[in-house]
């Protein structure tokens, strides 16, 4: 007795193809869409104050360290306190409506609730001071801040992305005087000495370099 229709002979072929296609589709979806490149890059939350880095760091040319003052000495690049803003803004544009939350913070002594853009997991110990001492520029990880009205995440900040640089730091190093420069390009004098600097640097690529 025939218990299966003849066309079922195709089943192994169809099953094989289905497993191949479904497997490939799942792999692609996880590989592409689950990556920080897709999930994180471009994150640009609304801030309580429409502060523009393009205006302050770009047009006015403030140094990054004017506001993020401790970045060379600390793990965290601090978010400036209201006092830093008011240092200028009790003289400049004192009646701007957009600065209202800052003035309120100044009067009530409550900090402005800035929203953090660049986040790392708790098990990663990232140290800004170490990276600046190694003379990695701000722009390397944060992108052209001087062109952003609203700060957005430019780089994936994934572990593979960190390790890419830890394994080959040369292209991301610059003279210590240029770390906050947004336009700096490597010149011949720098290319001549970068190898020596890399050799002296030896960034960690073992687990406990970043996870303690």
């Amino acid at each position, binding site marked *: 007795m025939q218990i299966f229709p003849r066309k079922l002979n195709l089943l192994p072929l169809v099953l094989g193809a289905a497993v191949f296609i479904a497997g490939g589709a799942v792999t692609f979806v996880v*590989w592409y869409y689950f990556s920080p490149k897709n999930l994180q890059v471009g994150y640009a939350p609304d801030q309580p104050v429409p502060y523009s880095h393009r205006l302050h760091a770009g047009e006015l040319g403030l140094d990054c360290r004017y506001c993020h003052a401790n970045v060379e000495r600390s793990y965290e690049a601090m978010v400036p306190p209201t006092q830093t803003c008011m240092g200028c803004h009790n003289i400049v544009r004192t009646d701007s409506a957009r600065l209202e939350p800052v003035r309120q913070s100044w009067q009530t002594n409550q900090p402005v609730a800035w929203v953090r853009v660049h986040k790392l997991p708790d098990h990663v110990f990232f140290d800004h001071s170490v990276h600046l001492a190694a003379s990695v520029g701000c722009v390397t990880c944060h992108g052209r801040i001087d062109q952003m009205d609203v700060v957005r995440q430019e780089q994936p900040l994934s572990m*593979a992305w960190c390790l890419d640089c830890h394994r080959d730091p040369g292209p991301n190093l610059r003279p210590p005087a240029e770390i906050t420069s947004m336009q700096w390009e490597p010149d011949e004098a720098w290319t001549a000495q970068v190898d020596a600097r890399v050799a002296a640097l030896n960034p960690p690529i073992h687990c406990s370099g970043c996870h303690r």
Partner: protein
Amino acid sequence: MSTALPTDALPIDDSVPIEDIGERHLMPADMTVSEVTTLVAGVTENPAPRGWWMLFIPAVLLAGLMFACIGYLVTAGVGAWGNNAPVYWAWDITNFVWWIGIGHAGTLISAILFLFRQKWRTSINRFAEAMTVFAVLCAAIFPALHTGRPWFDYYLFPIPNQMNVWPNFKSPLMWDVFAVNTYLTISVVFFFVGLIPDLATIRDRSTNLLRKRIYGFFALGWRGSHRHWQHYERAYLIFAAISTPLVLSVHSVVSFDFATSVIPGWHTTIFPPYFVAGAVFSGFALVMTLMLIVRAVFGMHRVVTLKHLDLMTKFMLATSMLVGYAYAMEFFIAWYSGNEYEWWHFFHTRIGLADSTGQRSPYFWAWVAMVSCNVLVPQIFWFKYARRSIPVMFVATLLINVGMWFERFVIIVLSIHRDYLPSAWGIFHPTLIDMGLYLGTMGFFLTMFLLFVRWLPMFAIAELKGILPAAQPSHAPDHHEAPEAPAGELSPAPAE
């Protein structure tokens, strides 16, 4: 000559040599081809006997307990187990090694005994292969949970990822992942390939279309042609050859988890063969425990005869002595090496001699349980009476598996509960979750096993027919009325 035999009497007709080589029939001489089919396929066709339900219901409840414990453990974290400094490996790894070890009998019986043409394997190989698959699944649960965050278990596999995290191939724990996964894959494939002709038999006997279709689907269109048999036999031989090294490699790799470390009690070169012998030992014991139950529940006394059981007890006796030798050798090396840490571990922690401060080991009883169950109990099989007595075999095999669990407990917990500094000493206290999970895996195992027994041919029908008296070319037809030609199940069975 071949009269109806009482079920548990020795059903071997000693006066009927199979050939001039003096072999004897493994199954009753009046066993016919059709009886084998009816007996084995009948289990899947008739309603389950009451004994099956009496085992199945508690097994399912225990399996539920396992899932409850896993659920609690995953939500609460591994702190729900009693593992803590310095005993970071405790019941979880003990259970893992215990289950993996049990799985070893399957491959040994189906592969190595096949290559050595041990015909008595045909009555137990299907059984043991199924057990292997289920035991490895139970084993895999423990390390998967032991990672603490089971949802990150994919880190165990070399999958390209955004973290550039890659398995550490220098770690024996990594080798374990590959050894166990290889073993599971090969065991499943081997088990399935062996099932194909028997599934076709059940398909052909089925009267309802759904049943025909389900068994027919898995029988992969088997028609029993000569060409099919030729390919099948060749595939079976190849799988046996692939599986054979796995019998030795998997538990060797498991033993490396311990042997490559520098903990006294673990750092031992004898571990790989010692672990393999222990694995085969415990596997045979559990095969026998379950075999005795199933044999009684389904009345399979004519398929699994006392001759089979006798041979299995001899295997256990041999492996028990291998294990006993390894135990003794550990003590010898502890003394002969002159290493004070080794000495302290074996003579203080294990056998409980008082140390210089007059303290005694808190775990002496575990070592006593291990040696009595694994070395002393099997010695009873020197006696023919014990090799033929079902109650003795049943109790002994249960004790052997208790002992083999204690062996892993002794190796794992005793070795690490005394760190090098007395400030880092501790005792392991199992929690209810520890116990529930262990019992639960037994339920899970039994559930799958009982479903297997109920719905799949629990003996290799085709292979059993190959060792029937009727299948012997030299078989003298005047002994009894077996079919002349090697008939399939379609030929009418001759009357007794």
